């Protein structure tokens, strides 16, 4: 065997070995390789994008830079969250397995979006219930439970669901803590989430998000909200285990006592509460009228 053919064989062997590391996500490996795709490059669930260690590192750095440069890129914040959540997600999943409610969530795998949450039904619930409080909060802040960026970069399907559940329940945390959606309240909630759940992304957002605030707001954040967030978040029950969709009729104050949550310092609401209440009442009347029409 001549030297040249031996070295050519070595190069080909090396290229095949390197090729085996090639992550191919949704694509086949280049056909002219003639190699089979290894099992772990198949997507494990819809929207899954398998990455090898190099790509994961590249995307982590890239999405961090992009998220800092342009915080409106929600998909980059989500990607960073997916990629940094590694060690914490199994702990959250185990916390869910330890509680009966959490086990039910893992079995049912409920999703939270405008289709699965019946806003009209919730509007009919009496004041003081969680469902009513949630709808009022949505109206007051002017947001909807629209679909958040789906999870792409978590490899295990169950852990991917836990991550997705965390993202979709973010608004419920807003509601139960009584915090609006402006920047300082979001940051306070990130501190709370970090203390309660331990997700690194919440920690990053907490650690770096305040750099964009004015001095006065930052001062208020650290003086009033952060102590509340850390004390309350760390002592409260792990909120990932709460099956929110089954607690619409429950009294909010009862729930807060059950979880061990107390109110934060009064945050800054952009719309006065009475306006939102009027809008909620109007909605309730409209929903009732629709029901009456349907039944008659």
């Amino acid at each position, binding site marked *: 065997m001549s030297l040249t053919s031996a070295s050519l064989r070595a190069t080909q062997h090396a290229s095949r070995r390197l090729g085996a590391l090639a992550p191919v996500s949704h694509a086949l490996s280049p056909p*002219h390789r003639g190699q089979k795709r290894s099992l772990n490059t198949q997507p494990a669930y819809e929207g899954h994008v398998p990455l090898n260690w190099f790509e994961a590192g590249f995307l982590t750095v890239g999405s961090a830079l992009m998220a800092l440069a342009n915080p409106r890129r929600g998909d980059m914040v989500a990607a960073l969250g997916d990629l940094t959540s590694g060690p914490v997600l199994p702990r959250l999943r185990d916390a869910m397995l330890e509680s009966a409610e959490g086990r039910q969530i893992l079995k049912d795998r409920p999703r939270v979006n405008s289709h699965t949450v019946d806003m009209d039904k919730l509007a009919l619930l009496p004041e003081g219930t969680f469902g009513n409080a949630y709808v009022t909060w949505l109206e007051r802040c002017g947001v909807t439970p629209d679909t958040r*960026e789906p999870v792409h970069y978590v490899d295990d399907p169950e852990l991917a669901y836990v991550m997705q559940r965390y993202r979709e329940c973010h608004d419920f945390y807003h509601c139960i803590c009584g915090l609006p959606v402006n920047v300082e309240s979001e940051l306070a909630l990130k501190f709370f989430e970090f203390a309660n759940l331990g997700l690194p992304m919440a920690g990053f957002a907490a650690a770096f998000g305040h750099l964009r605030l004015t001095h006065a707001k930052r001062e208020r954040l650290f003086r009033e909200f952060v102590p509340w967030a850390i004390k309350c978040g760390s002592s409260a029950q792990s909120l990932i285990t709460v099956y929110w969709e089954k607690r619409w009729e429950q009294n909010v104050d009862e729930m807060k006592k059950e979880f061990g949550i107390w109110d934060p310092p009064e945050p800054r609401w952009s719309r006065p509460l009475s306006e939102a209440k009027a809008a909620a009442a109007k909605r309730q009347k409209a929903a009732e009228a629709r029901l009456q029409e349907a039944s008659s």
Partner: protein
Amino acid sequence: MHRSLRQLRPLVSSSKSRLCSVSAVRHNHQDAQTTASTSAGHANPAANVNSGEQGSRVTHFGFKTVPEEQKENLVRNVFESVASSYDVMNDAMSLGVHRLWKDDFVARLKPGARGPMRCIDVAGGTGDIALRILDFAREKYADRETSVDVVDINAEMLKEGYKRFKKTMYHNTPQVAFKQANAQAMPESEFPSNTYDLYTIAFGIRNCTSIPDVLKEAYRVLKPGGTFACLEFSRVNNPLLSTLYDQYSFSIIPLLGTILAGDRESYQYLVESIRKFPPQPEFAKMIADAGFTTGAMHEGKGGAWTDLWGGIASIHTGVKI
């Protein structure tokens, strides 16, 4: 904080949904793809049209197999999504090297050397080649009569080109015109036969559904003596370079698409479409089959094509006698 996402990405989600709808087709043809093209060089990549199981004509869209009629739509969606960030993405993905390739391409053609030329740049949306042609003619030969018709199937890309030209001295002059047309079927009323001295197509022909049709149209609109020139990604023959290039293409480029443009699917398509394009000798033969006179079937001086950077890109030329 993440709420505004939905408003920012309508184009991406619509293109994504269209791409997802053909994934079922892809899985059915998965085995057919791998068995049909195993050893070095594809079995028959020039025949990008085969009969599917239903008897309908299918072609490739990256590594997916799609009905022929759909490919045009899918490609259009890809380029609609990428149009606004196209130039930024090109710079990021090629680390600026695409500029060198395009400069080399235009320099070899020497537009304006033998007097003013009528040029047509097809799939030339954002105007990279057109601008280089006009600048070359002006700077080297003091030629202000050479004109370029920029043709693209996609209005969004043409809009970007128009915007770029507005920043130059050629805006509102007869030297540049923007026309929307399909390279495979350019209407005779707008593009009469035997009109142009130079036909260029850079990094566009691999997105066309039927390459022979594009070549036929090119032959038609060129004057006798006119030159056909194509700059396109091609086959890298060196195995080491090829491995590195593949790793880079399949790992880094889709991620750059995700990070910079929020669109992984389009860039996955782009790197896959490069792999499906016929290698240099086959493409040179297709050009010769369309009626052009080309160099000998080898690379380099006197040959039908010239490789750039080891074959990552390649320039094919032909002349209409």
